[in-house]
């Protein structure tokens, strides 16, 4: 496997310029390059041109939420699932980047499982959000359901289609002031997990809270994530996917691309707008434009990842 393109500053800026829906992100040498979807369509870009469907990211389903910002989060999750099921070729797996539930209640986890069983793809990999570990047991409900791959630690890794996937947990402990924390044990595990791995193997890291500091006053970041990235800089392609902030924010740093995802439940305000990071109530017609899913396709020769964000409307 070879990484053909060197990341360019121009490419990186171009990626940032195309932030919205209907944009095709091509990951080349770790940097996302943007192509307008309409443009891609006129070129009759076929699925085979962009590789095989690798995975879909679903985030922040918040099952159990029922307030003004979206009284029907089950309905919008169903619409999101329909989007995934309508993909021309089904991905081999799905990543859920946390906040499955609103309040960690057993019935909310059960309702989420029931809804997510509507996906054609059954291989779903989870990381918890802070809402999923907010039961009195401090995560007992989440781990009783999803703890097996990580031995109840919350962090684990696996390989699929030649890509190395790393699930990290950053919602159990916090730095004073509120940033998430990975902690010494998880970082030591990560070091071992990456040791001896070929630098040409593409890496996909997923965790709930952003792994880079987007807005510290609202705790939108992870205090010790830099130690994790120090271990990843030697790799040619690292894609970091998070949820938590219910909107797309991206950053490129060397070969590491950071992307937060839209939620399927409700949007949140832009950093620092309003009293805090709560649900943002928008016009009913506007809501489906702010919710959605993300699909990622991967072509090994050359190693190219294409990230496509799709909204419900």
């Amino acid at each position, binding site marked *: 496997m070879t990484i053909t393109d060197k990341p360019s500053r121009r490419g990186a800026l171009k990626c940032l310029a195309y932030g919205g829906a209907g944009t095709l992100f091509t990951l080349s040498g770790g940097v996302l390059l943007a192509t307008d979807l309409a443009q891609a369509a006129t070129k009759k870009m076929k699925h085979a041109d962009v590789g095989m469907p690798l995975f879909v990211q679903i985030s922040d389903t918040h099952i159990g939420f029922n307030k003004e910002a979206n009284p029907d989060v089950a309905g919008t999750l169903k619409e999101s699932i329909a989007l995934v099921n309508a993909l021309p070729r089904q991905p081999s797996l799905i990543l859920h980047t946390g906040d499955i539930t609103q309040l960690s*209640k057993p019935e909310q986890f059960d309702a989420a499982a029931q809804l997510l069983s509507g996906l054609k793809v059954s291989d779903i990999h989870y990381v918890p959000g802070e*809402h999923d570990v*907010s039961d*009195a047991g401090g995560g007992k409900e989440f781990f009783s359901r999803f703890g097996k791959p990580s031995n109840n630690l919350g962090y684990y890794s696996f390989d699929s289609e030649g890509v190395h996937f790393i699930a990290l947990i950053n*919602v159990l402990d*916090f730095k004073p*002031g509120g940033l998430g924390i990975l902690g010494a044990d998880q970082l030591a595990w990560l070091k071992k997990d990456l040791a001896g791995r070929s630098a040409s193997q593409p890496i996909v890291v997923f965790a709930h809270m952003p792994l880079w500091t987007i807005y510290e006053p609202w705790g939108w970041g992870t205090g010790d994530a830099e130690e994790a990235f120090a271990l990843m800089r030697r790799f040619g392609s690292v894609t970091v996917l998070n949820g938590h902030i219910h909107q797309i924010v991206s950053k490129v740093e060397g070969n590491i691309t950071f992307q937060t995802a839209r939620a399927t439940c409700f949007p949140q305000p832009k950093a620092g707008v309003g*009293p*805090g990071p*709560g649900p943002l109530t928008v016009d009913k017609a506007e809501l489906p434009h702010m919710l959605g899913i993300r699909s990622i396709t991967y072509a090994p020769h050359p190693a190219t990842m294409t990230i496509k964000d799709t909204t419900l409307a």
Partner: protein
Amino acid sequence: MKAKTIAAALCLSTLAFACAKATPEKSDVTIKNFSFGPNAITVAAGTTVTWHNSDGEPHTVVSADGLFRSAALDTGEAFSFKFTKAGTFKYVCTIHPRMVATVTVK
């Protein structure tokens, strides 16, 4: 008659005593706009503190040293804990960990 009065008085005083014992100190904290108010409270040992979530968002009340931990409180829900030991107890909302406050028990 006199004995009865004494008995009644005794009973009343017992009741009063029991009543005094049955109404221990209480203190309330309101959660609103992503903050605990008051942010720092001082109470006597034996006080039961109740946190009321008056915010649109869910919050938790979790002590830094593991002494107490609420489940997620939705809007309108409350959580109580009786403090018996003296000390200063820091707590956070684990959903919004920048929300930090203290209870000092004397």
